């Protein structure tokens, strides 16, 4: 392929893994001399198109993800980025649905392997490692190898910014504006980036909490050591890397008196969270700390969500005033 004539366009589905590592992937693709195209923000159409092609028991993030893939196909990109997630080490796994993602996409959309751009990737929750590059000619491969380190620098820079300025991932990346209205409360907010920061999936929980004049603390704002510390006390910490961060952060929040309450946002039928939330709710019960778990699915009505969040915030305020 002659690179000078036309740049190869790579479609990035802007959900699931990209909710964490979008800055990495965008940087990596641009530095390798290709063009990155993002999918449109998710909406009800994305979810229902994806959901129709999957067994109905899948969680909403995967359904939305498939909708994003279909959206990218309409944009006529050359290739679609779909990393093959593999485990690195013995205690570091992705959720099975994420490991099987390339197969799920291939068998539900009929996309051939030639349309997919699948580097093999492992991640310890923070740093991404690309272990196998897709074969696109020697020149491009060499560039991809060189770009990995720089892209990791960008990603780690973003995380450092989150920690320094107490911002959530999309706020640090400049995609969302922090919307502080006060810090009546300090809430520890837990949830996977792809459900929490996607305004369609989470129905704007982050903004709602800002509206109730809460200050938010999330796992990105913690030092990795603060997350690992409480995990060391468990006989069997979680082996899923994203879930592990949340459990560690949750346990840290429970020990931290400056956090008024915990909210765990999860998706209906999420496997790793069924374990993590149970552990957290038992621990929270033992320490008598307020803990709210919210399950999300495709339902669009958000009145009940508003009521529950408001009630929780009111309760926390009352507790604080006591």
């Amino acid at each position, binding site marked *: 392929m002659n690179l000078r004539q036309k740049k190869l366009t790579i479609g990035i589905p802007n959900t699931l893994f990209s909710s964490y590592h979008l800055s990495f992937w965008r940087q990596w693709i641009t530095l390798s001399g290709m063009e990155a195209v993002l999918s449109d923000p998710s909406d009800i159409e994305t979810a229902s198109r994806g959901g129709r092609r*999957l*067994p109905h*028991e*899948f969680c909403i993030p995967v359904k939305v993800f498939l909708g994003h893939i279909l959206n990218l196909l309409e944009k006529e990109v050359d290739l679609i980025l779909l990393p*093959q997630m*593999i*485990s690195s080490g*013995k*205690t570091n*796994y*992705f*959720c*099975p*649905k994420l*490991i*099987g993602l*390339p*197969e*799920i996409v291939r*068998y*539900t959309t009929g996309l051939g392997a030639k349309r997919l751009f699948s580097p093999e990737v492992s991640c310890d929750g923070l740093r991404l490692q690309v272990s196998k590059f897709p074969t696109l000619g020697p020149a491009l491969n060499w560039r991809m190898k060189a770009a990995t380190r720089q892209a990791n620098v960008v990603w780690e820079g973003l995380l450092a910014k989150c920690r320094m300025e107490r911002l959530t991932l999309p706020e640090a990346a400049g995609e969302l504006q922090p919307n502080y209205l006060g810090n009546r409360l300090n809430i520890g907010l837990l949830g996977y980036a792809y459900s929490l920061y996607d305004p369609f999936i989470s129905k704007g929980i982050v903004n709602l909490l800002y509206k109730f004049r809460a200050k938010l603390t999330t796992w990105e704002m913690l030092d990795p050591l603060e997350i690992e510390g409480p995990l060391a006390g468990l*006989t*069997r910490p*979680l*082996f*899923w890397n994203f879930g592990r961060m949340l459990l560690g952060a949750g346990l840290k929040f429970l020990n931290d008196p400056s956090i008024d309450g915990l909210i765990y946002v999860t998706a*209906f*039928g*999420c*496997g*790793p*969270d*069924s*374990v993590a*939330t*149970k*552990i957290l709710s*038992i621990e929270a*019960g*033992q320490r008598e700390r307020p803990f709210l778990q919210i399950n999300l699915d495709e339902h669009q009505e958000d009145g009940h969500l508003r009521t529950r969040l408001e009630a929780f915030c009111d309760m926390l305020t009352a507790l604080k005033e006591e």
Partner: protein
Amino acid sequence: MKITFPYMGPVLVYKKLLERLGHEVIMPPRPSQRTIELGAKYSPEFICFPFKIILGSYLEALELGAEVIITTGFIGACRAVYYGDLSERILRQLGYPVKVIVFDSPAEGLQSFIRNCREIGNGRPLPEVAVTLNLVVRLIYASDYFQKQINHLRPYELCPGTADRKWQEIQALLESCANLKQLKHAVKEGGRIITAIPINKQREVLKVGLVGEIYLVMEGCSNNEIELKLARLGVEVVRHQYISNWFNNFFFPPRKLLREAKTYLKYAVGGHEQENIGHILEFKKRNFDGVIHLLPFGCMPELVTQTIIPALTTELDLPILSLSLDEQMGWVNNQIRLEAFVELLWTRRQLLKEENDAQFICRG
């Protein structure tokens, strides 16, 4: 130390092992509707169905006075990894001062494995433990061998229910074995019992493979005795998931089977999904009429298999029925799906036969 264990596979054999090591064993009752209700009540809502059953059976065993639970674990991406730990937390929260001993594979933590073995070994001398283990492993293989025979014969039996009654007899026989000599005798006797079951070998039956999540496939109480129900519909059910097969696969991974499955699913995602795909391919090669795939509601690895199944069905020209089960005990909808599936398989067989006949006549 009053000890109990999860209800899975040849439970009588586990009881024998622990008793010979000098423990007092509290036998977990066979899971019933009450067990499942108890388990579902105290489990996280979205955890898989087998956890709910196992937690329920722990609770019933604790009511009978158990103090220690032994179970197995491993390291991986499937939730089954946390069964032991999570149940211990839940039971402690409910106020039971229970201790859960989780046996990981020795490759994943030799020290804790040895420590656990010491604790369970109860200070018995090593040669005695070795003799017991030898007997127990042989008992497991014998028990699985007879269960396979019974599953094979069930659709052919003249008087429905005979095979299952005989299975109870064989189990009692195996349980009474105290040494290898008695086991040898029991195996012979078991063989005689099996040949004595009156059968009608001429009966035309369908052959269906059963794949899926290991607990649901193995445990009749969790899948509403699907093997018995299919046998009543004139279907012989073949499955590859037995404890003895699990041993075999653990020590000698089925390389060829996995290689074939890898063309469909490149990486293992944590459960038995690659083995299941391999078994589906193998069932096709053995000319089975269809395959039934069982998964617990929301099972992560088997959901990946389920997305591949439509492609497998068209590619192999093999009917596959996926059934997702949970604590909803109503069976009628599944029964109707099973009956419709069996009907479809009979029609397919008939059509294939007619097609063959037509080709035969045309060729003259």
